[in-house]
């Protein structure tokens, strides 16, 4: 049966995540390599990949509401912030200025997602009434209102310019702040975080895949492609838009909780308009509406600064000879990539990958 990609022997196979053994083994190899990575790579690369995983989770979240359900959301960063602060309050240490309950990670991680989802549901009655650009603009307002609240809700956020520490890394009652020894194995905090993020990322990814291969995901896509037809097929638009927002926020909240645990602290100024827009751009560059797109986008976003440095090194271009500094160069190229992908490959990196894969599937017989 191998080599005939669209031939399924039964319906269960067809609807499963990996329709053949080749895909399954590739996934296994990739997971194994990812786990091994944290023992082989330097702290720098571990941090970079950890960040990629978390951005991918947030990207998937945005992809559910924007890519699948077609509802433009420019305020994803606010939901990430809600998750970050929920986890900081539940898992963080109380000080004279901020509250914190120092609970275990098994509480703060899921609750961060739930808190963000609840906020998503609270604003749902407003967001589901609007479509297209008006929705985009309301979410834009949310960004400003959200960051205003973050800045002023001092007992939770510490206040603008001051910030607060986030949740402590404590799992099943074991404090992992200083790393952990399991037998002869010693894991540093950053390695633990890497593995936690990797695991969360895998589950988040599988969740999205599950979504698109079942009822809710199909309903979201239907709303995106034609809301009138979708309604005529018995899809409750209100409920599905709201659930898309809630799921999206849930992902954002989870990502936010872990993201700021990695950086150690969170300051309200982080959740600016640019922050939210970055996620929109990541989803667009990766491939909106696709399962793997946000992961590609996240990897691209975190790795391309390293790539730029690599190229500068290869062509022996000194940083000082550039008209822009590195940070600006990155931003410039980022902007350019958004434009180029939208014009030339609206399906983003996923589109490129898709074509490459099809090419190699048929290799060496080109059509």
């Amino acid at each position, binding site marked *: 049966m191998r080599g005939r990609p669209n031939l399924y022997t039964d319906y269960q196979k067809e609807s499963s995540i990996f329709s053949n053994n080749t895909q399954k083994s590739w996934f296994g190899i990739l997971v194994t390599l990812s786990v091994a990575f944290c023992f082989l790579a330097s702290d720098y690369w571990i941090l970079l990949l950890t960040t990629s995983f978390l951005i991918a989770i947030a990207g998937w979240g945005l992809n559910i509401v*924007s890519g699948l359900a*077609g509802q*433009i959301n420019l305020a994803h960063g606010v939901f990430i912030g809600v998750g970050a602060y929920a986890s900081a309050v539940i898992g963080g240490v109380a000080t004279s200025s901020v509250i914190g309950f120092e609970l275990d990670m098994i509480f703060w991680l899921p609750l961060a997602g739930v808190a963000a989802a609840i906020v998503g549901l609270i604003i749902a009655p*407003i967001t589901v*009434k*609007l479509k*297209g*650009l*008006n929705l*985009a*603009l*309301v979410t*834009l*307002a*949310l960004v*400003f*209102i959200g960051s*205003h*609240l973050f*800045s*002023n809700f001092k007992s939770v956020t510490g206040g*603008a310019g001051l910030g607060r520490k986030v949740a402590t890394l404590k799992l099943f009652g074991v404090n992992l702040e200083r790393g952990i020894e399991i037998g002869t194995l010693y894991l540093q905090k950053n390695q633990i975080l890497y593995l936690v993020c990797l695991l969360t990322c895998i589950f988040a990814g599988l969740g999205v895949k599950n979504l698109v291969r079942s009822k809710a995901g199909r309903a979201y896509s239907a709303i995106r492609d034609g809301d*009138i037809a979708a309604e005529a097929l018995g899809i409750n638009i209100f409920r599905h838009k709201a659930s898309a927002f809630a799921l999206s926020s849930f992902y954002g909240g989870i990502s936010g909780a872990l993201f700021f645990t990695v950086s150690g602290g969170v300051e309200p100024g982080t959740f600016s*308009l640019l922050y939210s*827009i970055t996620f*929109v*751009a990541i989803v*667009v560059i990766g491939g909106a509406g696709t399962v793997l797109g946000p992961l590609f986008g996240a990897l691209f976003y975190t790795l391309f600064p390293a790539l730029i440095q690599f190229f500068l090194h290869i062509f022996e271009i000194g940083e000082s000879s550039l*008209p*822009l*500094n590195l940070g*600006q160069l990155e*931003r*410039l190229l*980022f*902007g*350019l*990539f*958004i*434009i180029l992908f*939208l*014009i030339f490959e*609206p399906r983003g990196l996923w589109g490129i990958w898709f074509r490459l894969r099809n090419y190699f599937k048929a290799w060496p017989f080109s059509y």
Partner: protein
Amino acid sequence: MIIFLQATVEGLSLAAIYSLVAIGFVLIYKAMEVLSFAQPALAVVGAGIISSLAVDRGIPFWLALFLGVILTGILGLLIERTFLRPMVGEPVFSVAVLTIGIDILLRTVLDSWIGINPKYMGDPFPTFGNFGAVNIGGVNIKYLELAALITAIILIIILSIFFRKSKYGIAMRATSYDQEAAMAQGINVGRIFGLVWMIAGILAAFAGFFITGGFNTLSQFSFISALRALPAVVIGGLDSIPGAVVGSVIIGLTQGYVAYYQLTFESFVGFSFGNGFSVVAPYIIMFVILIFKPDGLFGTEEVERV
């Protein structure tokens, strides 16, 4: 009372600035159904060009202002030609995100030029008499504010004459009404799109100058002021020019009154809206208005067709 008038003057001058940016938004939206997030970037780029000509190159200010405005208009035209033209017929969301990309592009280049020290416009306003202000019955009106008000009024008048009388203006109105019918009438729609972006660029450059003129200076954060025109447009309705003006007045006055009265009011009611409230107040107003009127105060309602 004088303080109230002072706050009103400040608010109206902000309104004038916002309306310049807002009209640009509306023109582009009416013609192409594109929401351009690049408008604030065009405004600060305009200011940057003026500053670089007038201060760095030593060109007389008025000439620099003229050149800056025209060059920004041409920049708008070029952006439409290179980036927007290939996107005709794509979903609105894609185009909106594309303009975010343009915004990042423009501002990155500008930011690298600005650096960390704020830039001056080299305008004559700060050095006029009493540091650039005239006192009318106790109310201080900065020359810069006065200029912004007058410029906005003149430009709005010129634009309305242009739309009513000139060949291109009428063609633009036709295009915004029905693109295909306009094409059938022999109107070069592509040229109209270019023209719209050019006008939007010119308006933005004026706004950019008034935002950064005088002591306000051009810094990497100046664009946030121009971005506040967005709630103005939304409040008025995306496709209504009078709406844009009314929206701008609402936003400008809100900001002016909040800046002057928030602390007094808070100490009166004993409740704090929080720091930086004057900056979010416009967005809160926009949020509330959109809940009740999803198409803004003056926008046309969309009719669904199956």
